[in-house]
Every structure is written in structure tokens, then in C-alpha cells.
């Protein structure tokens, strides 16, 4: 009964309801406007909302997250420019549909199926998270340490062209996270004798720098892209279409939840896997894939919204972010004094049910905003980059200043912005950096706890790992990721074991 009470909290309070609606609305536009990303928006929002009541801040940010994942599909369909990485697969069949004059229908159908996917994701979160949290309480410090490393490695290996660059970025993030006074022994770490560094580098400043400034700087190079207007007809999809594609939508939603729940993988990969599944499972599509098949539109849209619910599972139960957006979210929870992890469910079960209720609410708002306001939408999306980019800079700087009313944070933000620009330029992923910053304390503390319980013996640590099935699985996964990315694997083992694989 308590759970239901907390679930309905954001539904019954007019203030929270309005903030969720506002967040979802903003999220749809942020997701849709190429050049604005959800990660960027949530990073900037953290700094502006951090003096707020935690519930209000969460409502706004949950809305932005949920809306943003959906919003990317709009521009993918209308302009063939995915507004967000998770909409890359949507453009493959969505844009051909729009070219046939079916843009309205495509938007309507993708809205309904996004909402279906969103609900399935939330349902799985509500059912699975409590038992996973119970299980997570039995985790040893070494398991947490390995989970932290695993998360960074997965993001590192999936988000860029080279694993070495991903690992470098992740390790760099971990190192940034250790700057300041050590929480256990109060030793100074990387402070260079500067007292301002005792509190460490503010993670929000790092986030805004890497996702706000550096991304906007990068976009200065692609300023002029012609916008092709599409005619938008009816938006409300036909009931027969919804019925026909519902089974596919449900199937791909489950793919989305599972991929979203894995640490390191998020909506973009879920969407591509779902597209692949749709392509293989649809024997006789009415229209060929890539030329405007509705299956190819529905599958990624269901999956990427389902992945949101999935991504919340490791975030709330283990405190491990699944991707860059959830890493930013965990940063927000920390700032509001919440400690995501297995104890969150025990100590503050209301937070969990509040979040579930809030996600559900945001999902309903997607349906409402998704099927209305298309005229306004096409106006705003055409906002030229020459105006948009200066505004991103403005908000980034003001946002960084607003965290602590200190100009120091602005300097850090700018430094990471410039460094991030060069990282992007030379093909380094920036996601692992932020994941590293967020996971640094968790990995460091659990490493030290683990090694202390073994009385400083690394051999004992490894020996005891093999007594717990969970530790073995985690260790094996880490080793597997490393091995499959080395030349030894691609040149020696793979040709022998999988001679048929391409």
C-alpha cells in the first residue's frame, strides 16, 4: 500500500505533475533538435536544480530523459538526422516513409510504439529491481569493484572505434574522481598544494564541459546543413496498424529492457539490435527494409524507450550507471544526498516507487505531446544552429557557475570542454570519462575494502574470487572483453574457433 502511495505521489501533486509534463515536453525538443543531447540537458539541469527539493528536481529530469529518448525519432523521420544516438536505427526506415508522404503516420506509429516500449521497460523495472536489490546485498566489495571496472570497459569498448581509447578515457575519469582529500585517510591526492582542490573537481563541471561545450564546439564545423521540409498528414495511427505490429513491438521491447539493463549498453545499441531482430524475423515485409518498412520503424522505437526502464535497474539497485546519461543521473542523485545502490531500496523504498510512478507519468505525457503540437514542433526544430550554439555556450557557463556560485567551476568546465573537443576530434569517446568520474569513489573504496579483508594479499583475493560464482562470472566477462579486442583473438583464436564468422 505504501508503494502505491509513493507511486502516485507525482500524479497527485499538481506541482510535480506540472514539472514532469514540462520535463517531458522539454525532453522531446531536446531530443529532437540535432545538436542538443539528453546528456547535455541533464548535465546543465543538475546545476540549476540542485538547490531544489529532490522530488521536484527528479520529476523534471526523469521527464527530460524519457522525452529525450523519444524525441530523437522525430528528426530522424522528418530530416533524416537522428536527434539522438538512439534514433540512428529509426532513420533507416523512418525517413523513407516520410519521403513517401507518410511522415505523420510514421510519427504517430512511432509515438504509440515508444510508449508501449516505455511501459514494458517500467514494468520490468518494477518487478525485477526489488529482487535484484536483495541479491545485490550479498555482493562482496570485490564484486562491486569489478562491476565498476566492467561498466567502464563496456562503455569504452562499445562507444568508440578503439578499446585502448575507451580504456584511456575511463581510466582518466577514474583519476579525475580521486582528486581531492582521500575520504578514508584524508591524504591529499593530486591537489598540487592548492586548497581549492581539496574538495575535488566537481563532476557536474566535468559533465557540462564534456557534453555541453565540447559538443557545441565540435558542431561549429558542421554549421550549414540544408533542411528539407516534409508534409505532415494525419498523426493518429490506424488501430489496425497498432494491432498488427504490437507483437513485434513487445518482442523488441524485451530486447530493449535487457540491453538497457546491461551495464555499458544503452538505447542506441538496443535500437540497432531490435532493428536487426525485426529484419530477420519479418519473413515477408510489405515494403522492403530500408525503403520505408513500418517494422523497421517500430522495432528500434519500442526498444530504445524500453531501454530507459532497463537502464534504471542497475542504476537504482547497484549504483552502477548503464551509460553516459545514467551516469549523469547518478551524479544528480548523489548531489541530492541519495545514495543509489542496494541500500537505497531498503532505506528509501519511497524513492524507488516514486521514480517508477514518475517514469510511468512521463511515458503518458509522451503519448499526449507526441500526438499533438506537430506544427509548433516543426517550427522549433528549424531553429538555426547559429542561434542555438551560442545559447548552449551561455547555458553551459551559467550552469557551471550556478553549481557553487564559484568561478572555479567555470574554469574546470572550460578546460574539460577544450580537452573534450580534442578528444572527440581524435576519436576518443567522452562517455567513459564521465562514467569513470562517477564510479571512481565506488571502485576505489571497494578495492581497498576487498584488499583489506584479504590482509593485503592479492593472491588470496584472486583465490577467493573463485569461491563465488558471481565473482567468477564478473572476472570472466572482464577478461573476455579484453581478450576479444586484442590482436591475439582476431588473428589466432577467432579464425580457428569460428572459421565461418566474417
Amino acid at each position: 500500500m505504501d508503494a502505491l502511495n509513493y507511486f502516485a505521489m507525482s500524479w497527485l501533486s499538481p506541482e510535480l505533475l506540472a514539472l514532469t509534463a514540462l520535463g517531458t515536453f522539454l525532453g522531446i525538443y531536446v531530443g529532437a533538435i540535432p545538436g542538443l543531447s539528453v546528456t547535455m540537458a541533464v548535465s546543465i539541469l543538475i546545476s540549476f536544480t540542485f538547490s531544489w527539493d529532490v522530488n521536484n528536481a527528479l520529476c523534471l529530469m526523469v521527464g527530460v530523459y524519457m522525452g529525450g529518448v523519444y524525441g530523437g525519432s522525430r528528426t530522424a523521420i522528418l530530416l533524416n538526422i537522428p536527434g539522438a544516438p538512439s534514433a540512428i536505427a529509426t532513420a533507416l526506415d523512418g525517413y523513407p516513409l516520410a519521403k513517401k508522404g507518410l511522415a505523420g503516420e510514421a510519427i504517430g506509429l512511432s509515438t504509440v510504439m515508444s510508449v508501449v516500449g516505455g511501459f514494458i521497460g517500467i514494468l520490468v523495472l518494477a518487478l525485477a529491481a526489488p529482487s535484484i536489490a536483495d541479491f545485490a546485498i550479498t555482493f562482496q566489495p570485490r564484486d562491486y569493484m569489478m562491476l565498476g571496472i566492467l561498466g567502464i570497459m563496456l562503455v569504452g569498448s562499445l562507444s568508440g572505434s578503439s578499446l585502448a581509447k575507451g580504456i584511456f578515457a575511463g581510466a582518466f575519469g577514474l583519476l579525475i574522481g580521486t582528486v581531492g582529500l582521500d575520504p578514508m585517510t584524508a591524504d591529499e591526492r593530486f591537489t598540487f598544494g592548492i586548497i581549492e582542490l581539496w574538495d575535488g573537481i566537481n563532476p557536474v563541471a566535468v559533465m557540462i564541459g564534456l557534453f555541453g561545450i565540447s559538443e557545441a564546439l565540435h558542431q561549429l564545423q558542421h554549421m550549414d546543413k540544408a533542411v528539407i521540409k516534409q508534409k505532415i498528414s494525419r498523426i493518429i495511427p490506424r488501430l489496425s496498424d497498432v494491432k498488427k505490429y504490437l507483437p513485434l513491438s513487445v518482442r523488441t521491447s524485451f530486447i530493449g529492457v535487457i540491453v538497457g539493463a546491461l551495464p555499458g549498453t544503452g538505447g542506441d545499441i538496443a535500437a540497432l539490435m531490435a532493428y536487426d531482430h525485426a529484419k530477420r524475423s519479418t519473413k515477408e515485409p510489405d515494403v522492403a527494409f530500408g525503403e520505408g518498412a513500418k517494422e523497421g520503424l517500430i522495432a528500434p522505437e519500442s526498444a530504445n524507450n524500453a531501454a530507459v526502464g532497463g537502464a534504471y535497474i542497475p542504476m537504482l539497485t547497484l549504483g552502477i550507471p548503464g551509460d553516459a546519461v545514467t551516469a549523469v543521473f547518478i551524479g544528480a542523485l548523489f548531489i541530492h544526498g541519495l545514495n543509489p545502490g542496494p541500500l537505497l531500496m531498503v532505506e528509501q523504498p519511497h524513492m524507488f516507487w516514486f521514480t517508477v510512478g514518475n517514469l510511468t507519468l512521463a511515458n503518458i505525457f509522451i503519448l499526449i505531446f507526441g500526438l499533438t503540437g506537430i506544427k509548433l514542433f516543426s517550427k522549433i526544430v528549424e531553429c538555426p544552429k547559429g542561434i542555438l550554439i551560442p545559447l548552449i555556450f551561455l547555458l553551459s557557463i551559467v550552469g557551471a557557475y550556478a553549481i557553487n556560485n564559484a568561478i572555479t567551476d567555470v574554469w574546470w568546465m572550460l578546460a574539460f570542454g577544450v580537452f573534450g573537443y580534442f578528444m572527440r576530434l581524435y576519436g576518443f569517446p567522452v562517455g567513459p570519462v564521465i562514467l569513470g568520474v562517477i564510479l571512481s569513489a565506488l571502485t576505489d573504496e571497494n578495492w581497498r575494502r576487498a584488499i583489506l579483508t584479504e590482509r593485503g594479499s592479492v593472491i588470496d583475493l584472486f583465490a577467493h574470487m573463485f569461491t563465488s560464482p558471481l565473482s567468477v562470472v564478473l572476472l570472466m566477462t572482464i577478461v573476455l572483453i579484453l581478450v576479444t579486442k586484442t590482436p591475439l583473438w582476431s588473428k589466432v583464436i577467432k579464425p580457428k574457433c569460428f572459421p565461418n564468422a566474417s
Partner: protein
Amino acid sequence: MSSHEPTPKTRKPGERLFTFLLVIGSVYLFWQAYQIAGFSDLSSAGAFPMATAATMILAACFIFVNTLKRPTSQNTSFFTHCFPPIVAMIMALILVYAVVLESLGFILSSFVFLFITIQFLYRRRMLTTLAISLFSLIMVYIVFRLIFQVVLPEGIVPERDIIASITALWR
């Protein structure tokens, strides 16, 4: 996954220097990490930073060597493809903006910043730019300063007095 960018065959201008600087930076950070507690104890405050810095050195060396192996790409130069003047110019503008933000205050510095950057990037008539930057500044001010109650640097514009007199007019 098809979302991956394929590994480029050639190296971009400046890439060699950047990756080399990463190696040097990693080594310096490792030395700093060593200064925390040395090799005294695996559970010391310095153990984890040293492990991460060591990982950075390994990864950076690997990247550096790989970069050296690739041939330089033709027809690209650092200042047109990697660090064009527009990026340098905007970076400098942001820097100036950050420097004067506290002394000039949010309103004045932001307005000048918006006006110059929009004029520079959007390239319309002066008056259009003026209108756009004024409008967006007012929107930002209303949303963040008045609704979200974010504290912004006041500087030389007597902002509070102005707001107070406006609200006084209302009553």
C-alpha cells in the same frame, strides 16, 4: 555494431602530438600518484590512483604507437580541418566571457557574448541579431533567474533595484 565509426586508416594532423602529450601527461600523473603514498601498501590512498595512472600510460603508449603506424592523411591541414579559425575564435570569446562574467555581471556580459557570437555564426543584419540576442537573453533570465531562482553574478548592473522598481510599479 554499425554505429561504430570505422577506424580511420590515416592519421589526422596534430594527432601524433596529441597522443604524445597524453603519454607525457599520464607519466606525470603517475609520478604525482606515486607521491601520495609510494609503493607502501596496496590499500593506501595512493594505490588506486597509481593503478589508474598506470592504465592510462599503457593505453596512451598503445594509442601513440598505433598512431605512428598510420600514414599522414593528405589534403588536410590542422588549421582548416581540425582546429579551424572559427573554433579558435569562439573559444577565445568564451574565455573572455568567463573572465568578465563576475565583474560585468550576467546581463551585460551575456548580452555582449550572445550578440557577437550570433552575429558571427548566423550572419544576418545587425538589427535582427540585436533582437534575437535580446529576446533569448530575456527568456533565459526569466526562466533561470526568476522561475528557477538561480543566483547569477550581478556585476555593475543594479539588477535587484530594477526588479524592485518594476514590481513596485505593478502594485
